[in-house]
């Protein structure tokens, strides 16, 4: 049996990932919320991720846990989720909650604050698509996880859930994840201008975020549409 050489072993070690369940167990001990593979199931084609990452010269680390999936994930769970994602939401999406655009000034000075500017209140449509049945009882990671899952099939619901998170956990540990979900949800529900504005604000506010490749991929998608 021949062994891979040192370089190959190192390359594999770089892709070595802790089992999400193991990290989740540590999080439970610390009593903090934890999303095992944050937002990885949001469908961003890995090619898009790779090209954005290459453009930005981002290290492989920045991509760990992301849609670039198959190369870095060990569990396979998230990769499976990515594969399950439809490319676009259903043909005739229901009316989406309208989010008021943010003011230019608010964006310009958004950098030092702890949160992105408050999301304006949504006026939910009368149809009973609301989140009140259970979302108010979910804990923080549950809420984010549901929002993330809703993105693929029902961005409107994802948006509502993200806003529910913002209301209930304004200083929550998953605020950044929520902001990314919100961006995606806005983009997928057709509110592209607002999505774009928030993506730009996100870039300025979280220049070192691990979610930046995703946000930039979203921006370049919006630009190419």
């Amino acid at each position, binding site marked *: *049996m*021949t*062994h*891979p*050489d*040192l370089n*190959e*072993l*190192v390359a*594999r*070690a*770089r892709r*070595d*990932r*802790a089992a999400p369940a*193991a*990290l989740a*167990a*540590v*999080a439970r*001990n*610390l*009593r*903090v*919320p*934890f*999303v095992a593979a*944050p937002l990885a199931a949001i469908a961003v084609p890995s090619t898009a991720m790779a090209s954005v990452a290459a453009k930005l010269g981002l*290290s*492989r*680390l920045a991509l*760990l*846990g992301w849609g670039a999936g198959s190369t870095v994930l*060990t569990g396979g769970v998230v990769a499976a989720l990515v594969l399950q994602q439809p490319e676009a939401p259903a043909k005739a999406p229901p009316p989406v909650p309208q989010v008021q655009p943010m003011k230019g000034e608010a964006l310009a000075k958004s950098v030092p604050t702890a949160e992105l500017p408050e999301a304006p209140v949504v006026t939910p449509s009368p149809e009973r698509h609301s989140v009140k049945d259970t979302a108010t009882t979910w*804990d923080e990671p549950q809420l984010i996880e549901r929002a993330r899952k809703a993105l693929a099939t029902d961005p409107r619901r994802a948006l509502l859930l993200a806003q529910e998170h913002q209301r209930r956990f304004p*200083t*929550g*540990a*998953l605020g*950044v*994840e929520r902001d990314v979900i919100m961006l995606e949800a806005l983009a997928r529900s057709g509110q592209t201008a607002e999505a774009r504005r928030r993506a730009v604000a996100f870039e300025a506010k979280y220049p*070192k*975020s*691990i979610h930046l490749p995703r946000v930039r991929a979203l921006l370049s998608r919006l630009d190419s549409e």
Partner: protein
Amino acid sequence: MPEPEALIGPVTARLFQAHAAEVWRFLKYVGVREQDLPDACQEVFLVAHRKLPEFRGDSAPRTWLYGIALRVAKTWRRRRQLVPLGDDDRAVAPSQEHERERRDTHELLCWALDQISELQREVFVLHEIEELPMGEVAARVECGVFTAYSRLRLARNALKRALAEKGVKR
């Protein structure tokens, strides 16, 4: 139901969300036993929570965490020396062929890393696996950059020798 109070603050919780996987991997390759990884990983973030007020922002948070993880790993390695390694979970037969192969290669590297000096190992793992620039590596292990480069070179040579030996043995 009241939510249990977290043992670490929201900032450290965010660090955990962002970097726990990297800290976990770092601990593993720098010599913490597989079965000790959950405790060691938890300890890193408890220490980070305590030391957060001292964080001056002169390095990236991830790099700062590696510094803490280095010290935590040292104590766990010492415990490992006190308690004989024996048949730990590395001996457990993995169920799937792919998983076995994955574990084998990771274990091979861990084994080789066990054969070299601690100082060399720390530099090698920080630079080669965690991909930290050498300036940052030197700062983390508290030596000059030239010394760090020297340790890196020695580590590479020693690892190649160890692996060659392993290849012959098998």
